[in-house]
């Protein structure tokens, strides 16, 4: 059982809660692999996804996770909803809440948006990514993947490379891996490094090779191509040349190191195209694990909900 009704960030989770989610996800992964992908854990529960930003894998994995566990699942398409008429976030969320929603999965470009919603609805709120703050379910599926491939998280050295400044994935991974005792290094251009990042418990480098050296896990991050237009780096070519993860740089990591990426990948930019292959990286497995981890989270949060007068 998770302590809070909501999953707003890794910041708010204890290491015991993280382990509980990961342990449950092991069983959930078995369900996904069955011929008949159906289990009764969320029967009679309603899960809604409300995404103010584009998404393929996170949104769909929440929906499939809900359906595999027998929930009523629906998505609010923001572009064709009353959001387009200017309805506020709180009013939209309240509207969804009073239709009998048990769990609301929200992605928003503003940091703290899910926290705001959580204070204003009875449903459990899952943060599916808020601005540059957190993406807790991504960090949990990353941890699940690392644990599956490497055993315990405690002794791992994890190197995360790319646009650290704008990345909620980095922040959630840093909080989670710190709580589990792993060592985290980050690397990227100085213009894409948040101030005082080391206070989050990571080592920061601008030299990618230093960060990767001896790592058990190397994680590439998507660079948003628009950042170049804002003057944060001079060109995609230069970025790829200096900060891209390629076969040669990957050799600096441990021999059995795994390569991860939260997706979507800019092939040939942050990682070489040849590395985005099931033999060379675990990117596809991360996606599968994302469904299993979200099944576990939905199930654990659903225990907070019983009868409700509407």
């Amino acid at each position, binding site marked *: 059982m998770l302590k809070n009704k909501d999953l707003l960030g890794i910041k708010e989770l204890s290491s015991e809660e993280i382990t509980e989610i990961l342990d449950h996800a092991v069983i959930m992964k078995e369900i996904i692999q069955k011929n008949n992908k159906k289990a009764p854990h969320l029967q009679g529960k309603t899960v809604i996804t409300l995404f103010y930003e584009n998404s393929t894998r996170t949104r769909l994995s929440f929906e499939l996770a809900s359906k595999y566990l027998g929930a009523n699942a629906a998505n609010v398409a923001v572009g064709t909803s009353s959001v387009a008429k200017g309805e506020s976030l*709180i009013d939209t969320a309240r509207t969804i809440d009073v239709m009998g929603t048990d769990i609301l999965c929200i992605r928003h470009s503003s940091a*703290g948006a899910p926290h*705001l919603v959580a204070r204003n609805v009875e449903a459990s709120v899952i943060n599916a990514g*808020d601005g*540059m*703050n957190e993406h807790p379910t991504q960090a949990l599926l990353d941890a699940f993947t690392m644990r599956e491939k490497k055993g315990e998280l405690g002794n791992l050295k994890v190197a995360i490379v790319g646009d650290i400044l704008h990345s909620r994935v980095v922040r959630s991974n840093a909080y989670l891996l710190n709580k589990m005792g792993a060592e985290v290094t980050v690397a990227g251009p100085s213009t894409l490094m948040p*101030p*005082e990042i080391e206070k989050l418990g990571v080592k920061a480098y601008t030299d990618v090779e230093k960060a990767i050296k001896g790592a058990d896990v190397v994680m590439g991050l998507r660079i948003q191509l628009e950042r170049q237009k804002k003057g944060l780096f001079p060109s995609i070519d230069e970025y790829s040349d200096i900060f891209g993860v390629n076969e040669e740089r990957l050799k600096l990591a441990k021999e059995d190191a795994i390569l991860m990426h939260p997706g979507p990948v800019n092939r040939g930019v942050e990682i070489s195209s040849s590395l985005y292959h099931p033999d060379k990286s675990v990117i596809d497995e991360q996606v599968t694990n994302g469904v299993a981890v979200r099944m576990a989270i939905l199930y654990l949060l659903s225990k907070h909900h019983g009868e409700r007068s509407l």
Partner: protein
Amino acid sequence: MEYLIKNTVIYNSDKTVKADIYIKDGKIEKIGENLSYENATVVDGSKKIALPGLCDIHCHLRDPGYEYKEDIISGAKSAAAGGFTSIVAMPNTKPVADNKAVIDYINNKAKNACVNVYQAGAITKGLEGKELAEIGEMKKSGIVAVTDDGKPVSDGSMMKKALLYAGMFDLPVIAHEEDMSLVDGGSMNEGYMSTYLGLRGISKAAEEVMVSRDIIIAKSLSEKVHITHISTKGSVELIRQAKKDGVKVTCDTCPHYFSLDETACDGFNTNAKMNPPLRTNEDVEAIIEGLRDGTIDMIATDHAPHHEDEKNCEFDKALNGIIGFETAFALAYDYLVTKNGFSLNKIVELMSRNPSDFIKIEGGEIAEGKVADLILADVENKWTYEAEKSVSKSKNTPYNKFTFGARVTDVFVKGNYIVENCNVKG
């Protein structure tokens, strides 16, 4: 009406005396021991202290245009509750207070306000930073300063013209310092907390670059400039040095910049969102030292009321600012007097004497023959501030439920007893 405040301790900026105060016909008629007047209503001042009425050179009354947040009457009441007898409203109203007609409207409405309401005019038309507003015409209608507050005057040559033109009318120019290219969409201080919360940060350089620009422009012209709501250690250092160099620069800060730091934003607390943003503990300490050594001339509230809906939303969408009248004196008492050893005389200098002199009004002193703008405060009993009970129309404050060691209890404006035992009359 005649009032006789008995057995109180009077704090002026330069001295402290134990005495009675006799108020008649809007003036302080007599100060002395064992006074007795047949027709005077006696006010027991024995457990209280008396200070000249506070003067705030920087507040937002939102009138005309945003009366759902505040208006001149409600704002004046809130000011009174906090011990402010004179306040200066900023011109970022709707329409902007950039012409005589709007100033006349405000002054007319302010006749019914319970404190002395003064208006600042805009520096540029529509606060757009492009053309000078009719500063001379507005001066005739009684403005006490000019400012584009809420926005910087981004164009250096426009600031130069403003200092020259307003200087001709002996009107202070109040500069809101912000380099928008360095603000770059930020919503809180840039540093560890912005990294931790995943919010875009505002570099201290955004303020300091403009502070230095305006010091240099003022120096080059030998004109005066007043820098408002400074928030960083760097700004304090720049102004300290400029004063040593003989530049005619003055400045103010706000209670939140000496009582809170950026950690107040944790949990995406929109009531800690303001502009300039709350900075770090290091800055808070520098602000306090700046107040102590006279680098910072005065304290202003930047009272900035907003409706609940404008704060109960996403942090980066929430509007900047907090209400400030009713907590300002308590914050100065707790954070400057109690925690940092400031004298009450120094608080009078920062919150009454200097701001009154700055806008050239009569207050700032309890003395015979002076206008009876004065307050009584209780510094013996603790008091818990409840935003819900604020007389402002808005409740956006980070200090809700704070317990303070001082409270303004009684207020006289031009001899009228408008706040009696913490109750604002009318």
